[in-house]
Structures are given as C-alpha cells and as structure tokens.
C-alpha cells in the first residue's frame, strides 16, 4: 500500500486522500460493500466497529457502533447519497445519539470514495471528505487525534508483548 497524495484545502475544508492498494478494484470494493469486512478496518483495533444495518443503495442507511475498551459505545450512521458499484460510493457520515438515531448537534461529513484500476492487480482509491464547518472539523480532528494515540498505544503494547 502506498499513500500517493494527500491534499488539504483549508478554505473549502476538504481532505483528499489518495492511496494505492495491491488488489483489483472488486476486492477493494468488497471492503466497503461487505459489512463484515468493513468492520475490520473502520474502527481502530481498540474500538472495533459493528455494522448493524448496511444498505448500499441511493438513500440507503448504514448504522454502526464502535465499542471501546471500557465498554463505551460510540454510534454512527451513513446515508448513502450515490453508489456505482464497484467504482464509486458517496455518503453523509454522522454520529448517532444513544437511541441510534442521528445526533442533531453533531457534525455530518460528506465522503466520496472512488476506486480506479491502476492495472489488473492494483487499485487507486480516492477519498474526498468535505466538512461543513471549522467547528465540525475541530470535533472530528479531536477524534482522529485520539485514534492516532490509540493506534500508537496498541502498537507499543504489541512490541512490549514480544518482550
């Protein structure tokens, strides 16, 4: 895997993240389309994700929650706005309240994922995230930072476990 390019537009508040994977488009698509595969990478190792609803069609709903080490549940949802399997998926991505319904006060990010073949064995994935406001970005970035720390911690644990 190679991260090809990351572009951040601070005025339009978008993040464009381009990565190349050593697998054909169909296999990379399965990581989005198959909820059992999706939950293996969406949440950090310490906060595994469980997808309870996964409707990959325009207007479809996706519901998931992540479970923390202390049992804390953090819920999220997507509303699929466009899908063109196996090449494109667009969705609004938000937080859920305790009842699983979209949280009215939490930010909603719009994501567009595009998969393109580089050759028969490699796929280029472009993800564009658009943030509605600087405030929403503050909240999301705080989560991203936490995730980065969790990742670092679990890696440190693994190294320590090896002795």
């Amino acid at each position, binding site marked *: *895997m190679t*991260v090809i390019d*990351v572009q*951040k537009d*601070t*005025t*339009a*508040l978008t*993040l464009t*993240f381009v*990565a190349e*994977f*050593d*697998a054909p488009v169909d*296999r*990379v698509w399965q*990581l989005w389309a198959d909820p059992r*595969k999706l939950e*293996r*990478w*969406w949440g*950090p190792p310490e906060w595994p994700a469980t997808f309870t609803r996964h409707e990959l069609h325009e207007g479809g709903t996706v519901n998931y929650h992540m479970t*923390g080490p202390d049992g*804390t549940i*953090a819920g999220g949802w997507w509303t699929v706005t466009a899908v063109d399997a196996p090449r494109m998926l667009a969705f609004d991505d938000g*937080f859920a309240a305790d009842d699983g319904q979209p949280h009215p006060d*939490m930010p909603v990010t719009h994501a567009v994922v595009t998969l393109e073949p580089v050759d028969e*064995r490699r796929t280029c*994935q472009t*993800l564009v*995230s658009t*943030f*509605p*406001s*600087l*405030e929403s*970005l*503050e*909240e*999301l*970035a*705080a*989560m*991203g*930072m*936490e*995730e*980065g720390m969790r*990742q670092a911690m679990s890696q440190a644990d693994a190294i320590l476990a090896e002795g």
Partner: protein
Amino acid sequence: MVTRTHELSDADVDAIFHALADRTRRDIVARVIEREQSVSALAERYAMSFAAVQKHVAVLQKAALVRKERDGRQQIVHAELERLRRAQQLLDRYEQLWRHRVDRIASILDEEGP
C-alpha cells in the same frame, strides 16, 4: 469520546462559512496569503467595482480571516494566518485517521492474498 480542543462560537463559525462560501472571497484569501495587498490592487483583479471588492473584504474581516491596516491613503489587506493555520492543523489530524484506516485496509488485502 469527542473532546474539543478549541472552541469557536456559533457566530464565529457562521461568519467563517458565510465568508468562504463565495468564490471571489476565497480568491481574495488565496491572494493575500501569498502577500498582503491593498484593496485597490485587489479591485483591479476582478470585474466588479471597488465598492463591491471592499464589501467582500469586509465580510472576510468580520470572519477574522483577514485584517485591514491603513497605510497612508491605502488600505492593506493581510491574511490572519493563525486562523487559517488552525484549519490546516485540524485537517492534518483528520488525515491521520484516514492514514490508519488505509493501513488496515492494506493489511486485510494482504492477508486475503492475491
């Protein structure tokens, strides 16, 4: 699990997004980041009146994305780099989240084999 590292009031956020929703204003921000410019120099760049450009600058000023300083008879527009840098830092952190996700996608694909 959400912690706020920096608080902006709703009014701040509204002002920023109203300010950046306009193409001309985004262009003005891009130009003054490169170097500070007088309102009249900016006005020459656009097919609109000096007064219209001045209005755009006022909107950006209200959102604290630029500030105006008087230099003799000229009004010089400066970018508020701290505020713009803050947005950059936030995007940097969000980038990390996707770096980790992409790493996990790659390991799953590796495990599955060709």
